[in-house]
């Protein structure tokens, strides 16, 4: 049943996303753009964290690097879309070099090492004042078009990037690369002895986790028109995508998107209803969800749900 409905559901979802700007106001469009951006971050983290099982906290490093690469390029007269490409290339190359060193570490050690990267980059950007504007931040050229058109432009650009990331996920998950990454996640030594070139595969996954994040960072810079080191190297940019993927379903194709939408919707509801304690309650909900759904919302099976219901009704009867 699930299989027959899936393509139909996807088509419906896609249509809804494409026509959304016609229906929604700027608030909705902005929220949707944000959801798409976080979907990109979640899908990206999923390559290294979900499929490969390496808990990377380097997302914000790639994001900030992409943002600065894009912003500096645009400042030097590079067209906006090309600058997003530059953001992607810079972040990916950096990931390739970084992965060569970091991916020798495993588990907690890898997590801590990847966490430090963004901190180091932030300090570097802070001190390279001539080039990056340092702590004062960097202004980007403003596009001289109508505000509504601008919101639509950013929305559709982000939608395209999200779709490209999703398509890459689908391809990787069916390709031998995805198979190899799943082997590494479950038993790296056994994978190696079975003929998987683990060093190469891990590096691929790490670079995949950077390329679209770098583009998203550069996109973000153009979108908000002003970036500073604390904003784009924010640790939350590393943590939130992880929470979203865990919420949605790690190592699955659609889990990260479901997670991003669920997370941001929850956050939005909390924020508008419970201003003073919203992050506390949000945290609580996430902990509960992850506790009871270890495979994420995507791993929710109707069979198990029914069994739960069955148990509870049996208890009631007793």
């Amino acid at each position, binding site marked *: 049943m699930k299989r027959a409905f899936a393509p139909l559901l996807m088509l419906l979802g896609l249509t809804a996303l494409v026509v959304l700007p016609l229906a929604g106001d700027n608030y909705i469009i902005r929220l949707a753009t944000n959801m798409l951006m976080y979907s990109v971050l979640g899908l990206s983290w999923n390559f290294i964290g979900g499929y490969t099982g390496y808990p990377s906290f380097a997302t914000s490093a790639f994001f900030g690097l992409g943002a600065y690469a894009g912003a500096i390029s645009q400042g030097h007269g590079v067209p906006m879309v090309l600058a997003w490409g530059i953001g992607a290339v810079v972040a990916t190359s950096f990931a390739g070099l970084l992965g060569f060193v970091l991916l020798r570490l495993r588990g907690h050690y890898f997590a801590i090492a990847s966490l430090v990267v963004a901190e180091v980059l932030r300090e570097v950007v802070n001190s390279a004042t001539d080039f990056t504007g340092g702590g004062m931040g960097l202004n980007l050229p403003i596009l001289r078009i109508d505000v509504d058109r601008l919101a639509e432009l950013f929305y559709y650009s982000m939608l395209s990037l999200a779709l490209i990331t999703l398509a890459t996920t689908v391809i990787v998950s*069916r*390709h*031998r690369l995805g*198979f190899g990454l799943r*082997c590494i996640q479950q038993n790296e030594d056994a994978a*190696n*002895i*079975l*003929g998987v*070139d683990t060093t190469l595969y891990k590096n691929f996954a790490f670079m995949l986790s950077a390329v679209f994040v770098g583009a998203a960072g550069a996109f973000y810079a153009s979108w908000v028109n002003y970036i500073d080191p604390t904003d784009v190297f924010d640790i939350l940019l590393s943590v939130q995508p992880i929470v979203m993927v865990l919420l949605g379903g790690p190592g699955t194709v659609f889990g990260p998107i479901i997670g991003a939408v669920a997370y941001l919707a929850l956050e939005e509801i909390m924020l508008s209803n419970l201003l003073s304690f919203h992050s506390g309650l949000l945290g609580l909900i996430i902990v509960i969800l992850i506790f009871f759904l270890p495979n994420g919302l995507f791993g929710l099976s109707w069979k198990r749900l029914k069994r739960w219901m069955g148990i509870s009704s049996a208890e009631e009867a007793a």
Partner: protein
Amino acid sequence: MKEILDVKSLSRQFGGLLALDDITFTLREGEIVGLIGPNGAGKTTLVNSVTGVHRATAGQITFSERRIEGLKSHRISRMGISRTFQVVQPFPRMSVLENVAAGSLFAGHASTPNEAKRLAQEHLAFVGLDREAEKSASVLTLAGRKRLELAKSLAMRPRLLMLDEVNAGLNPAEIDAALNLIRTIADRGVTIVVIEHLMRVVMNVSTRVLVLNQGKLIADAPPQEVVKNHQVIEAYLGKRYASAMKDAR
């Protein structure tokens, strides 16, 4: 018969411990060779050195006329040496079929995951696991997991297969079934090294036995001769027992 593996003066040191001390031997195509020795003799270290898990401290390893010491283990696997682990190493959250397909895909001859799964089905049928193909690897019994390990290695299309204690923990009936499988594989021309400390198994199946003790190769002979070898008896049962045996004779 053609030589397939040639190990020359292989040594491996772990800090102050000489785990392998100047080991030299050759394996020929289609042979079943037993590798025995007391616990800690260096059997697994030898396998690890040949398969590239550890780098040899000194010595040469030649596999079908190519030097392989210093190559990474995934390269060695793809060249045709595969091994099973003493402690089985399945991918727990994959199906039995996917576990075997991984072998076909990365070291065997499959070019796509789907082709790999098709080939994997044959290997599962060969070891008698085809009915469990869709089950998760973590629910198999120990005997089943040992068979899975064997199917994974076979999926890699090995020319040399090193079985590290595939029979440990099995009951006699399961052992007999495993030995039959091993003989069938050897009949296809695959060279097999059986690593065991169950003497009965090794004596039963191998045409030649290598005996390791404290990192040294102390015997390389047919099984009938090995059981009479003074040094081997000494290694297994102690010096006093060995000399008592000698006196009795």
